[in-house]
């Protein structure tokens, strides 16, 4: 007769393995956003850097643009940052930044270190605007069309592949519509 307690390690391990298996199934990029094709919620944020006069939902109208949610404490943001810098250098599409649940001093320092790709950066210290936008984590990027509607949401760092696969075709479409 085997004592049940000798099975404890096995049981614990199987539980963890099951979670990992589910984690593998769960593609982090496939959470639907409730806000697709809806206008961005109204907001008005103070400027993070002080270089502009703040950032509000009005800025997102008139041009196809990207809204990138980031924070200085997020490793994924560091990963995607060079990509954002490249995009900003190309100048095809303006990138707006939403600095989410972060301290102003930290994120200012972060942007000074890593360069600033954003046309405007709003400071969302409490995470309020992020909640309205349905942000689930950082980094996260929204594609906004000319009328200020959210057309696409991508959670996770943008890489070259992600950009070519998901963003480029959509941006082409959105520009073609007008």
């Amino acid at each position, binding site marked *: 007769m085997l004592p049940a307690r000798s099975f404890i*390690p096995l049981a614990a391990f199987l539980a963890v393995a099951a979670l990992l298996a589910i*984690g593998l199934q*769960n593609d982090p990029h496939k959470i639907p956003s409730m806000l697709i094709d809806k206008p961005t919620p109204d907001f008005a944020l103070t400027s993070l850097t002080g270089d502009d006069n703040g950032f509000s939902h009005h800025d997102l109208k008139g041009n196809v643009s990207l809204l990138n949610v980031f924070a200085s404490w997020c*490793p994924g943001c560091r990963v995607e940052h060079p990509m954002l810098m490249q995009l900003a250098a190309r100048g095809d599409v303006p990138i707006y930044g939403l600095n989410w649940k972060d301290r102003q001093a930290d994120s200012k320092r972060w942007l000074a270190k890593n360069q600033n790709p954003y046309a405007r950066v709003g400071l969302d210290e409490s995470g309020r605007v992020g909640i309205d936008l349905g942000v689930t984590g950082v980094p996260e990027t929204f594609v906004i069309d000319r009328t200020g509607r959210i057309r696409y949401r991508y959670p996770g760092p943008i890489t070259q592949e992600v950009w070519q696969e998901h963003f480029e075709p959509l941006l082409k479409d959105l520009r073609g519509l007008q």
Partner: protein
Amino acid sequence: MAAEAGLFAIIIALFISLVQSIVPLALMRRGGPAAAAFVRQAAIGQFVFIAVAFGCLTYAFVTSDFSVQVVAANSHTLKPLLYKVSGVWGNHEGSMLLWVLILSLFGAAVALFGDNLPDRLQANVLGVHGLIGLGFLTFIVITSNPFTRLINPPADGNGLNPILQDPGLAIHPPFLYLGYVGFSMAFSFSVAALIEGKVDASWARWVRPWVLAAWCFLTVGITLGSAWAYYTLGWGGWWFWDPVENASFMPWLAGTALLHSALVVERRHALISWTILLGILTFSLSLIGTFLVRSGVLTSVHSFAQDPSRGAFILALILLSTGGALTLFAIRAPRLRNGAPFAIISREGGLTVNNILLTTATATVFLGTFYPIFVDMMGNDKISVGPPYYNMTFVPIMVPLLLAMPIGPILKWKRDDIRSAMGRLKPAAYACLVAAIITLVVTLGHNVLATFFMAIAAWLVFGSFAILVHRTRIGSVPLSKSFWLARTTPLAFYGLIIAHAGMGVTIAGITGMTNWATEKIEMLRPGQSLQLSGYDVRLRSVGDIAGPNYEAERGYFDIARRGKPFAQLYSERRFYPVRQQQTTAAGIRTNLISNLYVTLGDPDGKGSWAVRFYYHPFMPLVWLGALTMSLGGFISLFDRRLRVGAPQRSATGLFAVPAE
């Protein structure tokens, strides 16, 4: 041709590993010595063929054979030779090949040096080891073939990610793998013991040196990784609790626990089933680390290109190996004879406390690393777990462990009296008090936490020496006798002192960095300067430089302290045209106690550059302490009692104080 030869060699190694694992498990009962000899040959053969494959891939990299996909994606003709070679493991496929190479190296070592192991144990160990090899070779052949050819080879390669082009990072993965793949020995020995249903003293004498060697390499590997992150990522951080860092830190914590519990098995024949369980878990954590880095389950700063199908494969391997081992454990462990009882206040008791705390610490890091996945499954909220979590969970668990570190080794085996043990540590307690007072005075009484941790650091360093003083009886016997005692003290004992003291040095470094590091960012024109912590940093000039495969802007800095010239440093902003990527090379001046760290940031286009300057007191101590720890481990490895083939207890003189 080389690529085809390499693939062929891998497939041969795969079949060898297949027979290596089948023979002992199927034939051992009848085959006896002949089967054992066969398995030994197989283990050596497996290593030879994987080494050939590794050589072929290295050849393809060095000769820039861009018809091989991996080479085209990760190398470039203009890259310096060192990085052509390190490029072999700077990508997923090649690093897996390095992984199995090291795995088979350990197997071959058991085959070559294991003459004095009982045939049956040796064959079983190598059989289990062959199974692990079989799993990973299959993984390589099916999902990660490094020798895939391109039909239209490009004229030149894609280049290696510039932040990986660094001498420190060139040698970091081999050390890291020697460490966590080395724990496969603990796994194979544990499973072999379960198969045989018995653990004898020779088992523990065999396991401990392997675990110790793996642990030493892993310590060096983690240290190199941390130092690399510090100077190349350009923001002066040295540990981020990033999932990939945790992936190497968890096996380290569990391996540290294993190291200590194996000691109890060896000396007292107690904690046997626990040690076997730890052996299985430590290697499983290494496997989970591999899974983490390659599956894309978590995002991280330094992981390889990720692919869920590879993740699924590794997860299946983990399920088979860990699941199988734990099933065997559930069936066999209750039958293992457990050794001599001991009092709570005893060396065994101290080592048990060590194990409980280290295992708990491992669990907190595990939880922190995987919590985002758990939350993800509960709702669909994605979160990141950051340093605040670890400060609140990991640090409080480490504090009692650190406090107990000098006490444990000074206790006697079986039973001791805590009061007399503390008496032996009195000098260390005084040193601890002095350190606390100095810190309080220096910080003007403001920094209680810094005071507390500096006192702990002193406690560890001086406590370790107090253990040595106690052993050699300096002061209570004539000096000549102390000298004689010191000479006859086994190396493993010195290893203990050095490693524990090294931990104290690391703690001092972490405390200093956490509390007293300062930094400043300013826009400077050439000729202008910034002031910080008594240093004056002047940007003398900025010039253009051409590196072997990059172009750079180099800023020259003159640093003065209290008005006197102190140092000249330069920092580069490098641009790698092949990858269109920018990196920073920091200018660092170290005196092994503190660092000055300067980087040239971006120009504003109007003649100024963003200049960052950090003053990092005690930063080098973090790494020096860690290297001291592994030095202690290496010294301990040279103890002749641990030497392969040494008789169980060689004479340690009249004073047979148990010494580790």
